[in-house]
């Protein structure tokens, strides 16, 4: 077994070690499997661990490296959020509904990792159907924050954040519909990026809200995230909303100097509801950027505070239709002894879905129902345009926008579980990037009460390279991203 420091190596370092045969993929994979064995029962990051498959892939990776057919990610172990369909391996979406579902096809994102020779360790815990911000809505129980196991890890990609923060995987994939990559990244002290809508294929990614969902990398550094995005991004003819646009090498621009970078700080991001200690972390991080040569100006996103309301119409509306296919007919959970067709539908769905998912389906169906469409759905889509236009206007004057990722650090498990509105307000700073389709990233920027806090950086459409460059430069100057939970 390799020593502990192996799990602190960056993806680039791992890649070099594997290629130089200083380390084999089988050894590396086994070391992660051992850590999972030791820690997962406590952290609950994984829903499914696939040791045999992982070691088989690791063997193949070692062979590819020997044959000189390796790409940068060959032989490196990753884990995937459990809503990416993986052929032959259960894809549960954190739901009882799909507890028995084995996809007969592979998502484009996971296929891209496979094609790159990466190893899959297993599938990661999440809020059911990606609905939630705490990972408490999982049929498989909450994942625990490795910084303090009484705390939530954030969500919905909670298992991904935990796996990366606790060094149970070299890095992980997540998905972000309203902040589900960035918010858990912030709360677990890792780097998470939500790409531009249309940058990464959604094929094989079980949909929550189709016009908002986007898969992204969750890693220990911006550099790692850049290497992952190189593999994840790109055109896919199977997804109508995926853009046919060249993918730059995101690692190539990581070292560009930030001198002259114009940073906008929206005054609305530093308003009521923001924990003052979190605000201080963010202001200190911005000051660090000024030291790196960036200029800072206050800007306004006047309609940002409506984003939560608009989002909680649009996302549930889309979800209410997206989740209709879970009807107990062709796959998934079916209730016992349905007495007729209606009973089959109603009980399979009521028993298969958890309460948050059902709430959102009900809100979505209500917002689309006769007589309410204009007041809710159409209204929310209009506000969506206003929110996007505010961003486009702001980007005339600034290169990136910075602010907090989440208003608070991680909170105790159970704290908000019966108060959906309090939970939803935790998304206030992340949701608008989804509504506008913008790329956004969270980088570790400090600690509050021993819990990590992230800085959010938002860029114009398709400017992921700018985000990664800004993140990497910050990480060259600071060591927040290298901090890790004491217990790990």
């Amino acid at each position, binding site marked *: 077994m390799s020593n502990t420091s192996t799990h602190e190596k960056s993806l680039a370092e791992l890649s070099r070690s594997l290629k130089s045969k200083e380390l084999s993929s089988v050894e590396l994979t086994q070391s992660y499997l051992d850590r999972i064995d030791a820690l997962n029962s406590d952290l609950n990051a994984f829903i499914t661990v696939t040791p045999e498959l992982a070691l088989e892939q690791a063997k193949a990776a070692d062979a590819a490296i020997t044959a000189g057919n390796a790409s940068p990610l060959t032989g490196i172990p990753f884990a995937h959020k459990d*809503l*990416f*369909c993986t052929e032959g391996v259960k*894809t549960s*979406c954190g739901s009882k509904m*799909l507890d028995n*579902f084995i*996809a*007969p*096809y592979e*998502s484009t994102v996971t296929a891209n990792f496979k094609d790159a020779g990466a190893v899959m360790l297993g599938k990661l815990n999440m809020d059911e159907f990606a609905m939630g911000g705490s990972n408490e809505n999982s049929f498989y129980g909450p994942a625990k924050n490795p910084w303090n196991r009484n705390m939530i890890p954030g969500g919905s990609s909670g298992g991904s954040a935990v796996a990366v923060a606790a060094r149970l995987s070299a890095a992980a994939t997540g998905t972000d519909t309203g902040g589900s990559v960035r918010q858990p990244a912030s709360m677990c002290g890792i780097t998470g990026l939500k790409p531009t809508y249309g940058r990464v294929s*959604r*094929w*094989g*990614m*079980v*949909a929550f*809200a*189709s*016009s908002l969902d986007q898969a992204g990398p969750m890693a220990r550094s911006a550099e790692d995230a850049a290497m992952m995005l190189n593999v994840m991004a790109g055109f896919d*003819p*199977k*997804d*109508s*909303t995926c853009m046919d646009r060249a993918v730059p090498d995101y690692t190539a621009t990581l070292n560009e100097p930030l001198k002259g970078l114009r940073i906008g700080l929206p005054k609305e991001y530093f308003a009521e509801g923001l924990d003052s200690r979190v605000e201080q972390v963010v202001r200190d991080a911005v000051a660090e950027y000024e030291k790196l040569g960036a200029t800072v100006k206050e800007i306004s996103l006047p309609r940002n505070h409506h984003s939560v309301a608009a989002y909680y119409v649009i996302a549930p*509306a*889309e979800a*209410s*239709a997206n*989740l*209709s*296919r*879970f*009807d107990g*007919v*062709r*796959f998934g959970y079916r209730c016992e002894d349905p007495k007729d*067709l209606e009973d089959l*539908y109603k009980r399979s769905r009521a028993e298969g879905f958890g309460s948050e998912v059902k709430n959102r389906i009900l809100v979505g*169906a209500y917002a*689309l*129902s*006769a007589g309410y*469409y204009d007041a809710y*759905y159409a209204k929310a889509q209009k506000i969506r345009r206003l929110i996007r236009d505010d961003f486009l206007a702001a980007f005339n004057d600034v290169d990136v926008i910075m602010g907090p990722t989440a208003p608070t650090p991680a909170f105790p498990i159970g704290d908000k579980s019966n108060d959906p509105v309090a939970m939803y307000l935790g998304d206030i700073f992340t949701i608008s990037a989804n509504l506008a389709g913008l790329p956004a990233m969270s980088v570790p920027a400090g600690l509050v009460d021993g819990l990590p806090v992230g800085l959010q950086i938002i860029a114009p459409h398709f400017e992921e390279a700018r985000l990664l460059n800004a993140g990497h430069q910050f990480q060259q100057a600071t060591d927040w991203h290298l901090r890790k939970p004491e217990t790990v």
Partner: protein
Amino acid sequence: MFTSTMQWEAVIGLEIHVQLSTKTKIFSGASTAFGAEANTQACAIDLGLPGTLPVVNDEAINMAIKFGLGIDAEINKVNVFERKNYFYPDLPKGYQTTQLEKPIVGAGHVDIMLDDKSTHRVRIHHAHLEEDAGKSLHEDFAGMSGIDLNRAGTPLIEIVTEPDMRNARQAVAFARKLHSIVTTLGICDGDMSQGSMRFDVNVSVRPQGQEELGTRTETKNLNSFKFMERAINKEIERQIELIEDGGTVIQETRLYNGDTDVARSMRSKEEANDYRYFPCPDLLPVVIEDSRLEKLRAEMPEMPEARKARFINELGLSDYDADVLSGELATADYFEAAAKAGGDAKLAANWVMGELAKTLNQNDLDISSCPVSAEVLGGLMARIKDNTISGKIAKQVFEALWKGEGANADEVIQAKGLKQVTDTGAIEAIIDDVLAANPKQVEQYQAADEAKRGKMVGFFVGQTMKASKGKANPGMVNQLLKKKLG
């Protein structure tokens, strides 16, 4: 007893689902071929498995545009797919992807010819693209229904008319015309028995002269023109009787069974549906470039209306004949090929609408499965035209050709020795025999005045034709008889 003197008027509108003859589904690359084993042509997308996504079939867009061009409609250059939400086992995703606010084809029209030979315009409200559902099979699987999703995702255009028809005959004339349009365009195989074209009929009645529309019902499942006509007439009668008996028509969906000629209310559809339409977030707006429109416009075939005009103007057919012959693509193609091969359009028209239509009807066959090809029928026409055979003998030849006794008219004529006798001497010899055998009739003829003789000559013509086994040229027989009888 009260008897009504009220005059009623029916108001009829149609909704037609036309299956487009693309090779693959509207949103997936699965085949649309008819008749495959259950669920062998339903891929992960068609089954609505989690994580699957739709991509729009280019050819489905082209076919919908062609339809729009074929009915002189506006093509909406930006059109949007929406989700129509409802639960049904043959609808895998729990929503149908369809169009509502921005359909691909806007308002257009179709002209039909009425019984009084006048032209009537039926306005098309719009036509939109959507996906077909699968099928529920109700054979007994221990009290369960079986779901076959092969048809799920087959591209459809749904055509919605204005309520511009007033009786069943008009509705059927419209339906036939529409059938002709989509088959001429090559966007649908037109096979109603396989469900390629499905007609739903909205019917209401109102007192003659009243502006306001009555409550309408929708009758589904009309898979032949014959059933459509019957079902509409039945529904009109039902509504009138109901109202005259003091009842009221309720808005409902009715299912017509052609075998039993009975329509019944569909209880499961009665529950008020709230379909919660909204733009499908998995699809982007379809934008139709001018270049695509121009290319399709250039590829448009001759439409039934234009063909009818050409039949009148170039082939010299009557309005009525041209309308009938241009009314169905297969018939029009057959007629034109026969006319060309035979060199006489009017003669071909008479045969196609007469003997051929009658024989097809007796044998319950479509023109597309006619055992006598258009070229062979044309060959027969040519022999009538050049006096090789008479029209009467031609029917005999046709019958033989129908039964497969010979590859073409010449072979049959040769084999059966049916060639017309045009030799004056030979005909005179037969006439002489006939006159010799009927002295009494000759005497009567010669005693009669000119007016009566006209009728009486028919007897001798008949006898002569009979004696010649129909082979004598009737014109010559007439002429020679008159000469000989003096």
